[in-house]
């Protein structure tokens, strides 16, 4: 069933494109996390204007399909006078903006679960709002929402298959190209699926491990 020589021949190309997938999804995740924290704090602000702003962000970036967002960033933004962006920059921007919207909503539950008194104690000791956010709220919100955050991480890596639309040869696009030249569709796509699993399985395991470690401490 397998044509092993062709398969082995295709591996270096796939491995190289794997780097593109990893690079863009990890960058998207990192920047998306920062956006998520900020949007989440907006959503929980006492000021109605900030709250609405946070709500609007989530409405837009969660509501529009990632594919459409990517097309918009890559093809439309230069039209309205913004400088041309490289495909990688467009991909990372799109992934970050979308991940930010989802992560903000995930973290919101975690933020709300932190007892108000802990924040009062921090304010009484003179900690600044930024210190309270970074030192008290985010670490606990992450622990409380870890399963959902890992889920989001895996979803994002899979969603990165969409960035080929802006011309990036990431994993999925590369596999398509390979299959188009050797006509071994089934075999190539099976290898492709295996690649995604190989990224996500260790991620899920590491997440589970981390979760157990943190739980032991907080129980």
């Amino acid at each position, binding site marked *: 069933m397998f044509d092993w020589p062709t398969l082995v021949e295709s591996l270096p190309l796939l491995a190289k494109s794997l780097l593109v997938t990893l690079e863009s999804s990890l960058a998207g995740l990192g920047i998306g996390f920062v956006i998520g924290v900020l949007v989440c704090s907006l959503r929980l602000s006492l000021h109605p204007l900030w709250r609405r702003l946070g709500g609007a962000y989530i409405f837009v970036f969660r509501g529009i399909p990632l594919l459409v967002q990517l097309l918009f960033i890559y093809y439309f933004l230069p039209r309205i006078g913004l400088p041309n962006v490289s495909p990688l920059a467009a991909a990372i921007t799109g992934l970050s903006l979308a991940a930010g919207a989802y992560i903000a909503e995930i973290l919101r539950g975690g933020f709300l679960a932190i007892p108000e008194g*802990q924040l*009062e104690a921090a304010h*009484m000791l003179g*900690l600044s709002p930024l210190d309270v956010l970074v030192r008290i709220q985010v670490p606990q919100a992450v622990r409380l929402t870890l399963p959902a955050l890992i889920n989001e991480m895996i979803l994002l890596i899979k969603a990165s298959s969409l960035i080929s639309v802006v011309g990036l040869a990431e994993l999925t696009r590369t596999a398509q190209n390979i299959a188009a030249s050797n006509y071994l569709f089934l075999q190539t796509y099976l290898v492709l699926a295996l690649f995604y699993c190989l990224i996500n399985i260790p991620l899920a395991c590491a997440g589970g491990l981390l979760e157990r470690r943190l739980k032991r401490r907080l129980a």
Partner: protein
Amino acid sequence: MTVTKTHRPALALRGVGKRFGSNQVLHNIDLEVQSSEVVCLIGPSGSGKSTLLRSMAFLEEYDDGEVFIEGQLLGWEPGLPRKRTSRAHLNKVRSTIGMVFQQFNLWPHMSVLGNVTEALIRVRRIASGEARQRGLAMLEKVGLAHKADAYPAQLSGGQQQRVAIARALAMEPHIMLFDEPTSALDPELVGEVLHVMKQLAADGMTMVVVTHEMGFAAQVADTVVFLDQGQIVARGSPQKLFHMTQHPRLQQFLQNYLDRNAFWQDMKEEATA
């Protein structure tokens, strides 16, 4: 620890009022706390004693009157209409106050020592080595230096509350506010927390304590203040207050405590009979 006596009260409330919506929870409260004085606020639940204490830290924004911490107006800009002071100014005025809460409010993701040193490092900008030394000294003071590396969840309630006291003391406050510090504790663990508080009072700390521990109030307080329905109904030395007969509401309140402990006396009498 020595505290210099001055004419200026450590803490002064003038005509403080507070509403939640249309519900007036504090009426025209006047109160002065002198340096090194220990004041206990007692009263039935819903009498406004916690709200009063939280107003002294601006955790509740009082609506009327003024709160002065060592002569500085707390929370509001002088004059009307009311406008909040800047965060920096609020922090400056508050920096002489330490607060201890009923629910301890330790940060569960940080070690015991981390809880104590966090503000030293982030707010006072003290190098982490020195902060560690100071933190350990504070933990020593409450008898918990050996738990420095434990996490709050691994401690008993009494131990957690002692860590919370050490955390507040690390910032070297002049005034300590206690909001029902033993109410969330098992009866067996109350003593160790009260012991630390007595020590603190003996060292000359200015303290305001909302409490249901009448024994503590009787032994340690210089002044006991009885609140009912948002008003100060009676105040005075514990000797005077606990024997006041002219206040029916206070009498009724104290009688509850006597009744609850009456069984003890009865059983003793039965045993000796």
